[in-house]
């Protein structure tokens, strides 16, 4: 239940995050687990730094250092960010840099109702829940029955069931729940044909309007989605890409080569001179391999009913400046 509220101490039943020299592991705090034969035995978690007797964590403070035979680490309380880095992958997932932007672009604050499809591994869902609770609610759908069920159980185990409803449903074929018509402040789609979800998003969003966001790896998906959004009266259709890079910091000692002495005649003039001294810098370098693409975020506003235009074929909203010079002008 360590997902629900801030805690100071670790209790049995919590999920904790082990932080061991830049590696993260999610671990369920249970004194005993079943072995292969189905007998209850003491829970010992194997880490690269040695075995951890899980029961020793119970009662310890979050943020505490833990000693292992070959090193040490720390235990942290899970946050949606730490969970995204440690959760069991059942699908591709969305990570924190995109998640952060999605939350902000959807104008989500506590109290909002947000509809999501598909649930996938629940990486985004955890962040949505955290943002809209305690008065808001997340409705999340997946057409993969098993995934929908696991997600549902997971939210319950995490103590989040009050804030989320996870259902098995093909939202492109059936739309979102009828009960959700006109209830949502925001709709988010991460599925292969988001453009087909646009009419359902239109139905789900409140009369006073709301926001839409879709995450798609391919530009063709984006193009079709933008057209669908336009046809359904969405405004301010914008597509963007966000990438985060980690900077590796180190102190580097650099040789200094002096060339100035060559201006004077001197006794020795070897061809290859040794560097004359050293200097030190703090340097930041981008890693060799860096994320180059995750997905395009396409966002849009659905205005309130009283200003919703008729379906118009008009690309003004998604236009942007571009350099080509106009030939006709006013001659002024």
């Amino acid at each position, binding site marked *: 239940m360590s997902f629900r509220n801030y805690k100071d101490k670790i209790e049995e039943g919590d999920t904790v995050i082990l932080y061991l020299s830049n590696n993260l592991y999610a671990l369920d705090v249970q004194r005993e687990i079943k072995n292969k034969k189905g007998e209850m035995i003491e829970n010992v978690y194997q880490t690269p730094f040695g075995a951890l007797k899980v029961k020793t964590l119970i009662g310890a403070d979050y943020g505490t250092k833990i000693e292992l035979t070959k090193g040490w680490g720390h235990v942290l309380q899970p946050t949606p960010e730490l969970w995204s880095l440690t959760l069991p992958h059942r699908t591709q997932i969305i990570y924190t840099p995109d998640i952060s932007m999605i939350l902000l672009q959807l104008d989500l*604050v506590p109290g909002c109702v947000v509809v999501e499809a598909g649930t996938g591994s629940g990486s985004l869902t955890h962040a949505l829940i955290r943002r809209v609770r305690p008065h808001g609610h997340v409705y999340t759908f997946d057409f993969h029955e098993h995934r929908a069920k696991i997600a549902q159980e997971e939210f319950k185990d995490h103590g989040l069931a009050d804030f989320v409803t996870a259902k098995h449903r093909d939202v492109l074929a059936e739309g979102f729940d009828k009960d959700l018509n006109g209830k949502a402040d925001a709709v988010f789609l991460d599925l292969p044909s988001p453009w087909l979800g646009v009419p359902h998003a239109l139905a789900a969003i409140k009369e006073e309007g709301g926001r839409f966001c879709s995450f798609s790896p391919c530009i063709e998906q984006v193009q079709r989605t933008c057209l669908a959004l336009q046809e359904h009266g969405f405004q301010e259709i914008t597509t963007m*890409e966000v990438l985060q890079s980690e900077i590796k910091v180190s102190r580097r000692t650099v040789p200094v080569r002096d060339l100035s002495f060559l201006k004077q005649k001197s006794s020795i003039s070897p061809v290859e001179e040794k560097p004359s001294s050293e200097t030190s810098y703090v340097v930041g370098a981008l890693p060799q391999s860096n994320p180059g693409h995750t997905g395009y975020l396409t966002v849009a506003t659905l205005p309130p009913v009283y200003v919703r235009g008729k379906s118009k074929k008009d690309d003004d909203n998604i236009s942007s400046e571009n350099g080509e010079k106009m030939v006709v002008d006013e001659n002024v």
Partner: protein
Amino acid sequence: MSNEIKIGDYVVIQKQNYKKLHKFNKADSSISLGRDTVNLKGIDGCPYFSVFKMIPKSSKRNRDYTVELAQEAVKLKDEIDIKVSGSDNRNILDDGNSQKLSASDIETLKSDSNKASDIVGTLINNSNTFHNKTEFSQDKYLRKKEKKYFEYFQVIKPNLRVISEIMYKLDPGKIQNLRIDTLSQIITMVNIHSEGNHLLYDSGSNGLVAAALLSVIGKDTNGKLLHMHPGNMSQKQALLAMNFPEEQLNRCVSVNVYSALRQFYQGCDTNNGVDKDIQTSENDENPLKRKADETDEHQSKKMKQEEDEELVESLDKTDGDKPRGNKKPKWHFDNIAASEILQNKMDSLVIACKEDPQNIFNELVSFVKPGRPFVIYYSAVEPLQQLYLTLRPRANVAALKLTCNWMRNYQVLPERTHPEVTMNGASGYLLSGYVLK
């Protein structure tokens, strides 16, 4: 916040892609949009998102407008009927003579017509080349003209996304180049949500970071924001522009960092009975702050001055922190409240500063509970690199990570999709991690 525009609200005026924040403090307040002055009389009570048409007061020449509620914004393309287009641009020569009207003809046309479509229609009819241009070029021309002559605007509710966008566009230097993607990550990296006590030190984002944190703490929740700043008054522009309800705004305690820490450690927020005036000047004369301001000013010289003043016009006169009469001023109670919050320790720490973050972090980190996250924003990487190396060997922090972001917008049009030609290059760096026992 209700759905109707009401006096006292901060509103966003959106004219095409241009957005501007405005404090709608009286029914007939005026706003300048580019070179136009628009009297907003009549928008009071209309629902947000309404479209208004700008009506010239007399002739277009003096650029004074009143407004009228409109059904929808009429697009030039719908009003002007284009019959022929060329198939490519091979025969088009820009010799500066394609327009038959003279400059003074055009001036007269502009001041005499009341409708954008009349102006643009006449321009097109007097152009030798327009009808040879491709549909695509014609379209682009109309869009460009529309930008110039567009007569409609919408009034929308400010929110974090819109405010962040407006402030970044207007003068990124004033918010330390804090771009929306980086701002969004500050919120998530430190797990800000409806619960907990969150500590912010901010010395130069015009209230943007505080607005961001308080908005996700939410209304009718328990979360609190302790907002520390080095100045006499906190920078609250963005915070006020969010139109937070009283109850929510009250859960953001804004305090001068010196007074609040003095109160915490010494049980008294002024320097040994020396009164507020002296305390104030101490902070005002803070040489560091001066210097930072100057650099900033230098940077923002490049910015369009005109627009610059506009934002300030309605946003600056705000704070009510001044002592009144003999009563203890509000700031004194805020310092006590801050000290109490600090006593119970904090669930997160955010620093967005102009100063070297090192000392500030060292002092404030001691208020953070073990296991809780922190993030430091800085507009340049070097101070954070230095801090990273200082913190790495320490036992009280873990999972240190220094990151930067890249963000690109796309033009998405059938057969014409490409990244936008300009990118917002500048956003700073984040150093994040967790506090340990």
